[in-house]
């Protein structure tokens, strides 16, 4: 069998496995989605408490933050929790013993995360549009999509780095990924401009890809900026993705080798 075909089949089986798991945890999926919708609406409603002239702009500003964070956090969470999840199920040794490249395994996890994140975000977007009757006719959707795609790459890189932590520490790794996610939420300007952050914290916002994604998406949707004006920021995001993904992969493979030395790959370390 051609190696590429074999790897493609393996990639497909990882994506399919994760969607099967969603079906089995359908109850929880509905609950999480419901919570995300309510959370987004609640944040958007803050905008309605402002004077009429600022309302529409603020609601959209906040909704963009909530929606994008929803997508990017799903991406980060699904990738960084892939190892914890397999370890919890007790399948990690079986999956890691398979004759496929680690890149294929991780690409399968990432592809699933992107599809899953997009589907959930679109559902929330539809509810937000209906709830707030927000006019976004001027929005540059293609521009927003380009920025979103470009921002997925660096977040995949960060997710791969986060996924390493459960390999290094059986118990505390998964907890640490939550902390990273929390810090990204704080410094990326999800619900406020990063300019309001204290100086000692603001420098961290420059290191978060989400900062640029949010800024560019707001420019595209609120300002109706042309696609051409977003090319620069999209290129930066693509470039950071092309740097972060190989670094993430290298770190992951190094950590896997370390775990295979220490014997911490298996479930109970």
């Amino acid at each position: 069998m051609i190696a590429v075909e074999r790897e493609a089949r393996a990639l497909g089986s990882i994506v399919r496995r994760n969607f099967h798991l969603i079906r089995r945890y359908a109850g929880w999926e509905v609950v999480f989605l419901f919570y995300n919708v309510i959370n987004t609406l609640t944040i958007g409603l803050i905008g309605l408490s402002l004077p009429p002239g600022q309302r529409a702009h603020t609601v959209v500003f906040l909704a963009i933050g909530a929606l994008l964070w929803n997508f990017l956090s799903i991406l980060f969470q699904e990738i960084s929790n892939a190892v914890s999840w397999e370890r919890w199920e007790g399948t990690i040794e079986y999956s890691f013993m398979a004759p496929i490249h680690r890149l294929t395994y991780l690409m399968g996890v990432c592809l699933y995360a992107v599809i899953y994140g997009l589907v959930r975000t679109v559902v929330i977007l539809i509810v937000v549009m209906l709830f707030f009757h927000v006019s976004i006719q001027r929005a540059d959707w293609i521009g927003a999509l380009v920025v979103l795609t470009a921002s997925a790459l660096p977040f995949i890189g960060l997710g791969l780095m986060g996924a390493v932590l459960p390999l290094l520490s059986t118990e505390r790794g998964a907890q640490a990924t939550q902390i990273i996610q929390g810090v990204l939420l704080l410094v990326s300007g999800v619900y406020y401009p990063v300019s309001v952050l204290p100086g000692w914290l603001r420098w961290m916002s420059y290191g978060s890809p989400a900062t640029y994604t949010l800024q560019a998406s707001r420019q595209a949707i609120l300002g109706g900026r042309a696609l051409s004006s977003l090319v620069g920021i999209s290129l930066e995001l693509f470039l950071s993705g092309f740097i972060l993904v190989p670094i993430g992969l290298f770190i992951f493979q190094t950590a896997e080798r370390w775990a295979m030395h220490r014997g911490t790959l298996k479930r109970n370390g």
Partner: protein
Amino acid sequence: MDSKISEGVSAIECHGVGKTFKVVQRNKWHRVATITHAVKGIDLVLPRHQILGVLGPNGSGKSTLIRMMATLLIPDEGTIQVFGLDVLAHRMKVRRLINRVSVEASFFKKLTARENLAYAAGLYGVPNYQAQKDATRILERLGLAREKLVVPLENLSRGQQQKIAIARALLTSPTLMLLDEPTTGLDPTSRREVQDFVLQVRQEHDATILITTHDMPEAERLCDQIAIIDEGRFVAYASPEELVKKWGEGQGLEHAFFRLTGHNLDNQEQESS
């Protein structure tokens, strides 16, 4: 599987294999490191088409040895070759030739057997339709009804899960099967079915099998050779008949095991399951 195997090479060759684990625990104000020499200086040559049983008390290094052969653990010392391929230098090629059934049936418990098998087959590049067809045939041979394929794994008994784990390993047509206590926790009928199947696999699939077990009659029935491991070292390596003759004093393999290791097997299986 498409990896070519040279004729004349052994299925497994181990030379001076050793593995040490260091566990650091925090004890209030300071850290305490515990060093465990799990495997020490193992030498082994397993010819093709044989069934080798590795017997040893809990914690004697059986699973560590299997994990190193399965490319899941990196040995600290020595070399391991599978069909002439070094497990570190040719990890991917080795992985195409082997499969492993562990004592704990590692599955996504909310998924059905069919879904789990589809995932496993996909990882090895086996088309899903072929995997499902083969799985049904193998599971029927193991005495598991077809309807069980659509039941979530968490609703199946341990014995049924273990049969599915064996079917999963066989779907990939491994040339070397590493069976880590595959019959632990099974009822006598299921145990017998699995044993029959292991013998059939060797015969029909041209496979070499390394099996760890606590069940002496099982070892006597299945194995061409038996290695007894204690505290990480092989203390004996011979055919079951030779072991009984040399160490069993006419009282069977269990007596030989007891003499060689100083351990009683009565509670071993219970502890490991």
